[in-house]
């Protein structure tokens, strides 16, 4: 195998696939990137057996072939090369020679035959979606995923294609974020999956480089084909292919925890509320991690307190004219959705100190937050 490639294209390509490789891979081959040259393209593939990524970059291929090399070291070397023009030669066994200007590197690799192939599966459900929409939806819900490994079902984002709607849900058992949009769902194409947290991270990072993304999934696997924009000068071509295991299990019935009725609703300036909550939370501590929202006549008061640091009091004007309500929350649970959203105005719904608070926007977003009970 022998090819010539632009240094930055090579670096960009490696950057796409780098994250999958853990620092403590159990098998040496999993620390490597599979480089395959054919036609006028180079394909770079990495996998950790749960999640695999393949991207393609343009290159001048003289002799087709393949090799695997330690991806982190390779990426560091490529970034550091002096000239834009890089020659890569892996003709002699498992050794690669990289020349650029006056630099010469030789790296030992492992044969491409030993690289585990990315899983292929029967496409049971196929959807074509807009990348920017999916990115936005993921951002709106992904913070609510559980980080608790014991509740693995919740360690991911739930995708549900049903009744001409795509709904994304994430929850950690104490708050739940949901976002939906209209999608054409043909009969028989409906289905759902739980996308693991790690894949969610990768997807958020990779999306947005082109227009559409094609999602295909079965009971066990999901694949995303992320289109690369035609006029892209990063060297990436065609699409990035990401294939992942899905979390197997039944996602809890999220609908039952969304309050059916709305008792009180106020309209709030998102950024202002976020700032107030943030400030009120400054005096909270690990021991007293809560802020109280007190809603009285046209006034929202936010207070925080801890014996170590003191107390805080924030107030903002709202439009509210019902009974006084005080309810306490973990400030982080309030801040997460406020920061993730982009709208200027959000709605906050509440009932009493024992009932959940709900953030809503005019498009189909909501975030249910369970209160803290203080006695």
């Amino acid at each position, binding site marked *: 195998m022998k090819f010539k490639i632009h240094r930055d294209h090579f670096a960009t390509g490696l950057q796409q696939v780098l994250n999958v490789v853990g620092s403590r891979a159990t098998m040496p081959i999993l620390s490597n990137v599979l480089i395959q040259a054919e036609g006028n393209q180079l394909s770079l593939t990495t996998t950790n057996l749960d999640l695999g990524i393949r991207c393609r970059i343009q290159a001048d291929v003289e002799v087709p072939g393949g090799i695997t090399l330690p991806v982190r070291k390779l990426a560091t070397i490529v970034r550091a090369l002096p000239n834009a023009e890089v020659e890569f030669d892996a003709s002699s066994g498992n050794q690669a020679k990289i020349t650029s200007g006056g630099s010469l590197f030789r790296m030992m690799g492992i044969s491409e035959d030993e690289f585990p192939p990315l899983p292929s599966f029967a496409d049971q459900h196929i959807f074509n979606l807009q990348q920017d929409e999916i990115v936005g939806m993921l951002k709106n819900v992904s913070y609510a995923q559980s980080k*608790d*490994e*014991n*509740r693995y079902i919740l360690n991911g984002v739930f995708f549900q294609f049903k009744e001409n709607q795509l709904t994304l849900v994430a*929850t*950690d*058992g*104490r*708050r*739940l974020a949901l976002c939906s949009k209209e999608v054409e769902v043909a009969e028989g194409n409906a289905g759902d999956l739980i996308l693991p947290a790690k894949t969610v991270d990768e997807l958020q990072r990779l999306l947005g480089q082109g227009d559409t993304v094609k999602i295909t999934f079965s009971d066990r696997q999901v694949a995303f084909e992320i289109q690369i924009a035609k006029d892209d000068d990063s060297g990436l071509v065609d699409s990035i292919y990401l294939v992942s295991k899905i979390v197997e299990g039944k996602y*809890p019935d999220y609908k039952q*925890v969304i309050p059916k009725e709305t008792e009180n609703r106020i309209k709030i300036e998102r950024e202002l509320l976020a700032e107030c909550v*943030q*400030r009120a*939370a*400054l*005096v*909270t*501590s*690990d*021991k*007293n*991690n*809560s802020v*109280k929202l007190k809603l009285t006549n046209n006034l929202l008061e936010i*207070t925080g*307190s*801890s*014996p*170590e*640091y*003191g*107390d*805080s*009091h924030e107030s903002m004007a709202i439009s509210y004219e019902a009974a006084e309500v005080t309810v*306490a929350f*973990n400030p982080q649970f309030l801040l997460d959705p406020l920061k993730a959203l982009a709208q200027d105005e959000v709605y906050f719904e509440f009932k009493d100190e*024992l009932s*959940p608070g709900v953030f809503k926007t005019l498009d189909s977003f909501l975030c*249910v937050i*369970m*209160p*803290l*009970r*203080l*006695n």
Partner: protein
Amino acid sequence: MIVALADSIDSLAAPPRIRVLPDRVINQIAAGEVIERPAAVVKELVENSLDAGATRVEVEFRNGGKSYIRIEDNGSGMSPDDALIALERHATSKLREADDLLKITSLGFRGEALPSIASVSRFTLKTRRPDWEHGTEIFINGGKFIHQRECGMPAGTRIEVAHLFNSVPARRKFLKTDNTEAAHIVHLMRLLAVARPRTAFTLIEDGRTVFQSPECPTMTDRVAEIWGRQVAGELVELPVATGENGLRLTGLIGKPGVGRTTRKEMIALVNGRAVDSRTLNYALIEGYHTFIPKGRYPLAFLFLEIDPAAVDVNIHPAKREIRFRDEGAVRRFVLTHVQERLRELTGFSLNTKAVPETLVDEAARQADAQLRAREAIPEPREIPTPAYPITKPKPASEDFRAKYIPKPTPTTRPWTPSKAAPAQNSVSESKESLPSDEDDSAPQNNAPDAVPLPSEDFPEPASLPPEPRRFRWRFLGRLKVDYALFETEAGLTMLRLRAAHERIWFERIAAYFASQSIARQQLLFPLPLEFEPRATAALQDHLEWIDAHGFSLEEFGRNFYRLQAHPDWLPEAKAEAFLRDLVDRLREGEIDPRRTELAHEQLARLAATRAVRYDDDLPEAAITKLAEQLLECRQPLACPRGRPTIVELSSGELRKRFGLT
């Protein structure tokens, strides 16, 4: 009929006839129970001396007491006739009727010892009553009376026991080496000596004086005499406590952190008798829980006085074991007082609940209390002028604090709730700002008119607000995964991270319980829990208590519950396991909600060691923070399980090791 009768006559004739045993055999059998080893001889005879009111007792023995034991006292002595009768079985001056057993105040009472000893040795008794002109000497060999004759001697009694167990070779075979037997005698004599500080004791082994102690004014002095000054230095006095049934507890107990690998130095005397009482031992061990490392035993000399009628000493041949009529009451009594004292020493108590009266008063009181707590030296407060300087004080927590934590300057004041706290609201100041930064930013005066008490909304936890103080430990690095090294004023300090983490959380959670301000996080998806029927019963009994500690459980059918909210501090994944642990412990009675304070402590320990997540992948800043938080703890030296959190290598020690001194 006749055949059957004949049969039965045959069968009656077959076994040997039943006979009454001669006294000598009876005595030898009894000796098997009472006199199991030379130390038992010493015990019985010295107890006799003490019962006879001796103020001076001298004990000499050779070859572990196997070949020779001599006990000499200046007690009341016996007349020649009494001396003879005393050698009969069950002859005693200490008891007249069975009812007397209930109010025994003397050490002996059965009248078994002398004949038993005499039956298994060459036994010489010399005794003279002060009002007699001459003494009497009785010589018995292996239970056989040889002679009684007059002799000259000072008032008192002198008994020589030679060739012990000569007449019972089987018993002799079971004796241990001379050294072991000697050790038993020495230990026993130490106990007796400690029990009777007003009596002078001399113990001589193979011609060498093991110890010699004159009359001592107090027990502390006696302990220092007999057990050494180092031990005495590790002890603190237990203030006199009295309770029902004439219970009166005094004694000396080890300082917090001082432990032993064996139970040998847990010494309990009940009404002046050294006993091995499980009740008292367990009370002690429980009392010391978290104050000494796990697997170590407390060091203690407990002197318990109790109405003789409330204790049965007649259940063990050597009276080593006793039984209290109300074991539970005695246990609680000892436990409470030991714990009280230990907490006093460490300044750690869960029930110092702060009830704010007015803001200013409260602040002043807290500041005052803190100052006092810090200045108070736990040490010799109640110890009446120790006759011997306490040479090696162990670091009690105040010592420790004094070493590391500078006293607060009078100008700094603890934070007080105040509504006007503008400085705290600036965004630039992170909530993790070190307390040391607060000197400047702490809100100024606390105007009495600062109205709505924040403490109405958030009841203050029992913990006092931390003083602004400089933290002077410098992080050096990590050792393995578990330890962090710090340079401190004292030298090198090694911190076990997990232990520190557990201690911090233990106190934090305990404070939640004490203040009853438990924030509970409600769950979106109630957690279904199924318990087995007996656990359900325990759960039902304590449902209210469990609820009060932050678990909202809803019954959901037979043996089924749904957890709707759990305490905020508990990671959700651990909630179920923790609750099950808790129910198990309630069921087994390990946690008793009726003893609120203890139960809180146990619950906090369970939570800190089992439930709160510990992440060993801490960055440097977090480790420093951890050490700092640890120092703010009330009892920073041990983890909730009682193991040390830090180990210190002082600069002096380092210099010594490098050969610089």
